[in-house]
């Protein structure tokens, strides 16, 4: 079984600050891979390297046989990587439907001139995308909100819309950046249910960054623990939870002041 995504010795630094200091991992087909670690450990940097927002200085990132480094974000999206953001990055003036339609930007495309006419191919493709989007609306139970601008929706629903936008792209790999951050218990459980459904129904490999340890332990197949830009342990939830290095990184067992 070959890996969907491989990260190999990736180094990313900003003027001497090493955000990622030799990070390697791989994600297998259908796997839910979680990345955890204290604030500033470099979790979101991994996502930003993956989606082409940051360019690492060294290392390789391969996705389905393609080298991702040096590609621009929209090209990477076209290869089949979709993501959500830690702080919601929706198009707040647009309706839920339009946001989801945007997720399908590179499915059934047509040119600008065709768009002026809204006949033939343009209309057919719009309708095909609309059908696909309505399935996502059903799947994520967004029916009652679909015609409202997302800026007006409650936070938990916005998170769900963002997940929907990523799913609408029919990705081959889904990146979830803190999918339940700031949610209450009920919203968290809804989201967990959706994530499990995505894995079971679609068999989609996912990389998830999350602080909610309960959620990570329950959902993830494997976990990578990061600290100061370096992975300190990768393994099943059970292995990771008992690892002394991990406990130290989280609880600060050795509280020494450096001379």
């Amino acid at each position, binding site marked *: 079984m070959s890996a969907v995504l491989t990260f190999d010795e990736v180094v990313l630094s900003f003027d001497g600050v090493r955000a990622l200091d030799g990070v390697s991992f791989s994600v297998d087909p259908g796997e839910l891979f979680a990345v955890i670690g204290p604030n500033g450990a470099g979790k979101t940097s991994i996502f930003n390297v993956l*989606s*082409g*927002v940051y360019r690492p200085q060294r290392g390789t990132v391969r996705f389905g046989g393609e080298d991702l480094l040096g590609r*621009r*974000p*929209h090209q990477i*999206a*076209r290869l089949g990587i*979709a*993501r959500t*953001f830690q702080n919601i*990055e*929706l*198009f*707040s*003036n*647009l309706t839920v439907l*339009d946001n989801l*339609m*945007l*997720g399908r*930007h*590179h499915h059934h*495309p*047509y040119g*600008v001139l065709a*768009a*002026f*006419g*809204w006949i033939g191919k*343009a*209309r057919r*493709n*719009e*309708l095909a995308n*609309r*059908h696909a989007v*309505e399935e996502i609306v059903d799947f994520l139970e967004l029916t009652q909100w679909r015609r409202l601008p997302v800026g007006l929706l409650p936070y938990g629903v916005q998170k769900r819309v963002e997940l929907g*936008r*990523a799913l609408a*792209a029919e990705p081959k790999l889904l990146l979830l950046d803190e999918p339940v951050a700031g949610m209450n218990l009920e919203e968290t459980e809804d989201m967990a249910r959706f994530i499990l459904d995505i894995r079971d129904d679609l068999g989609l490999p996912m990389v998830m960054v999350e602080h909610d340890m309960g959620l990570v332990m329950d959902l993830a197949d494997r976990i990578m623990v990061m600290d100061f830009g370096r992975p300190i342990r990768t393994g099943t939830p059970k292995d990771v939870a008992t690892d002394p290095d991990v406990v130290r990184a989280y609880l600060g067992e050795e509280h020494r002041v450096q001379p």
Partner: protein
Amino acid sequence: MSRPLLYLSYKQDMALLNTPAKRGWTIALAVGAVLLPFVLTDDLLVVLATACVAAIGAIGLNIVTGYGGQVSLGHAFFLAIGAYTAAAISGDPDSTRLIGFGITSLPIWLLAAGLVAGLAGLIVAPLAARLRGLYLAVVTLGLVFIGEHIFKHWRELTGGVGVGRPAAVPELFGFQFAVDGELFTKAQKLYLLMLVLLVIFGVLARNLVRSRTGRALAAVRDRDLAAEVIGVDVTRYKMIAFAVSSFYAGVAGALLYVMIGFVEPGSFNLGMSVQYIAMILIGGVGTISGSVLGALFITLLPRITRELPAVLPFISSSSGSGGITVFQVETILYGLLIIGFLIFEPRGLFGIWIRLRTYWKSWPFSH
């Protein structure tokens, strides 16, 4: 009787006129607009024809600024390019003073004006890929000054300051629009021509903004990082926004002086750009119908202020007779309207319409 908001297919739901009310209003407006020339006097019709043309230009500005989120103060520059392309193509080929090719067929010079302006827009667009917000506004402002300078000095094209040149000649398959005929006067013909063109360009723009392209533009406006990450090539869409917007500006520029029959190079100044900004701000940013409303409003405003001296004696119709003049009143009104709309109804006239609509939909309940 079927339920008004029951859709049986996505095709029905996604149609341009997807409610009975929209269909009704559109038919009523169309009938009203076509009957107007038989009711109004010629001088009012000329103002309305100008408003139709201004609306085409405002739609263009709204595509780049309202939908694409790229503030452009350079609209006058693209209007000028359109105006001079059209005037040159349809100009007198025997003239020793001015460039002219003698092709008076309206579709040819109109399309050419749009394309040349659109191309100019494409050349400017890479700036927008690098700059945003105020910086882009200042750079596009520079375009207006460069344009003004070129157009004032390139006498073979523009005729020079204070002299000018004849505007494009509107002729379609041998039919002349700019001369009085047996059935219709010049004003009636021009008004109907501009109305038809506005409807054509309006519907095209409406299609564009509800399409994949329009959504991508709105995505770039709302959050360019997220747009890029979901697969929208931000640079490409900024270029499309500028090209389409300039195309519309070129078309509007070509038609704008057909009514007066004369183009003066000094008129394409910052004031004109600001006028178009005012149109979309007052009409409604990010809406096509708002652009039309705003253009009507701004074009009719001078006409209304001209009636003021008769009602308010302290306003004079010419300078030198003390008090404030109608021109000063007009400038003050511009400023007050822009400020007023930005504070009280940022969605413009279109927003007021939406509010009225919601009120009557839920009447007699307040929510």
